[in-house]
């Protein structure tokens, strides 16, 4: 992370992400609902104009999930005991600290940013390179933050719902954030920008992260699927609500006085952040004109 040149482009990540993006853009274009009435009805309830295509990708993802991801997740769970898997999870969380710190800061959440630094320092040292979440046990729990959420707090609308092949539920804002984070992540920059052939490391990290996450929800997700009338619609709602809740920062139970000042910080910072704020204003205007039409 320290003295690596930051201008080296992680070419393979570019290709991977471009592929994902192209696939979704192409597939999305094919299937706009035809009548104007339909468009209105879909957009006001679900903002899912590419629903037909999304459902096909969702089906494909479920096929991959059933036949590859879940078996891998189950094998992972059987092969490794709980404490080992917890360590893997904590280690992966610790690797995310730099990007979480950046996003805390971009959102003006300076208290959270300080906690992220504290967690990283404590877990990387006393927590033996991140394999033990010592900071969490000391009362500084991990918190989620990413560029999609940052854009959300700046007022950038999420856009239509999209299902990305293999990666699953997303929105243009969240996917864009993910792609950008792929470039910006210091660990990715570190391993793709060196003379050794370590470019595969981000893929392994991504794969292990995916298996780690999936292994935690095997029963839960199969239960939701079994009891749902429309699993696709349920997942869509869960994804949206979860993202919205993270943007509202509902989990930060702030006492009133500091809560107010923190909110003000965030707002004034948001006003300074020019391009995203402009984009938000523009797209809001676009929405308004859409409605007026």
């Amino acid at each position, binding site marked *: 992370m320290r003295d690596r040149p930051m201008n080296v482009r992680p070419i393979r990540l570019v290709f991977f992400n471009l592929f994902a993006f192209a696939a979704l853009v192409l597939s999305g274009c094919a299937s706009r609902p035809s009548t104007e009435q339909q468009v209105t009805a879909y957009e006001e309830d679900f903002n899912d104009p590419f629903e037909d295509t999304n459902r096909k990708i969702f089906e494909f993802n479920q096929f991959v999930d059933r036949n590859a991801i879940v078996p891998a997740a189950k094998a992972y769970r059987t092969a490794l005991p709980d404490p080992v898997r917890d360590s893997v999870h904590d280690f992966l969380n610790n690797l995310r600290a730099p990007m979480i710190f950046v996003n805390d800061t971009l959102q003006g959440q300076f208290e959270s940013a300080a906690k992220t630094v504290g967690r990283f320092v404590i877990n990387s040292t006393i927590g033996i390179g991140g394999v033990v979440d010592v900071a969490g046990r000391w009362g500084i*729990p991990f918190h989620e933050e990413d560029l999609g959420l940052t854009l959300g707090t700046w007022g950038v609308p999420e856009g239509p719902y999209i299902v990305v092949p293999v990666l699953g539920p997303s929105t243009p804002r969240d996917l864009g954030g993910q792609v950008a984070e792929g470039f910006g992540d210091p660990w990715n920059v570190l391993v793709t920008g060196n003379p050794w052939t370590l470019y595969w490391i981000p893929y392994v990290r991504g794969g292990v992260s995916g298996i780690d996450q*999936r292994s935690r929800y095997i*029963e*839960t*997700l199969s239960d939701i699927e079994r009891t749902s009338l*429309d699993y696709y*619609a349920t997942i869509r709602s869960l994804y949206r609500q*979860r993202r919205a809740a993270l943007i509202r920062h509902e989990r930060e139970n702030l006492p009133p006085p500091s809560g107010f000042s923190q909110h003000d910080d965030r707002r004034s910072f948001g006003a300074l952040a020019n391009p995203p704020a402009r984009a938000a204003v523009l797209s809001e205007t676009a929405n308004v004109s859409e409605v007026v039409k």
Partner: protein
Amino acid sequence: MMRRSFLTVAFIALAGALAPAIPAAAAADPAAMISNLGSRALEVLGKDATQPQRAARFRELLREDFDVPGIGRFVLGRYWNTATEEQRAEFIKLFEDYIALAYATRLAEYSGENFKVTGSRPDADGAIVSSQILRPGGAAPVKVDWRLTGRNGVYKISDVSVDGISMAVTQRSEFASVIQHNGGQVQGLIAMLRDKTKGAAAR
């Protein structure tokens, strides 16, 4: 692929949520009502209960502690207005069956995790009670909010939100999707609910 950490705990929370009856007198204090839920769930839905028993008991609790007609009306959204009286009545009945079947199985996983009520505040229709489920290994606690509707001093649960995800909103979104895919007809949803609850009962 879902990669958010809410789902596992969502159902633990629901297990606590969809818990047994409290006497009407005790229900006057929303916070106390919620803090009793977890332990009562364990009492009534013991590990020895068979699946049909659990579903039957669960339905009793559902009727006593939850505002099922109110939730049913909410989850039907704007389609409530277009439904006939008969459809509404059948929907509410099927909806109750559906919740009982969907969530009773999930209760089996609930083993009395660390659950504590952290606060309560008045709301337009009643009260909102905040609670937390503590998790091991330094993970952040799961935040569970309960929306209670009060009528004549009796509170009933009208929504549960887990880390900001409302169960009622999720259900409404799913049902709206089902109705839209059935040409905007509530009858389509009713038919699917009938199928689902019948199939599950036979299992």
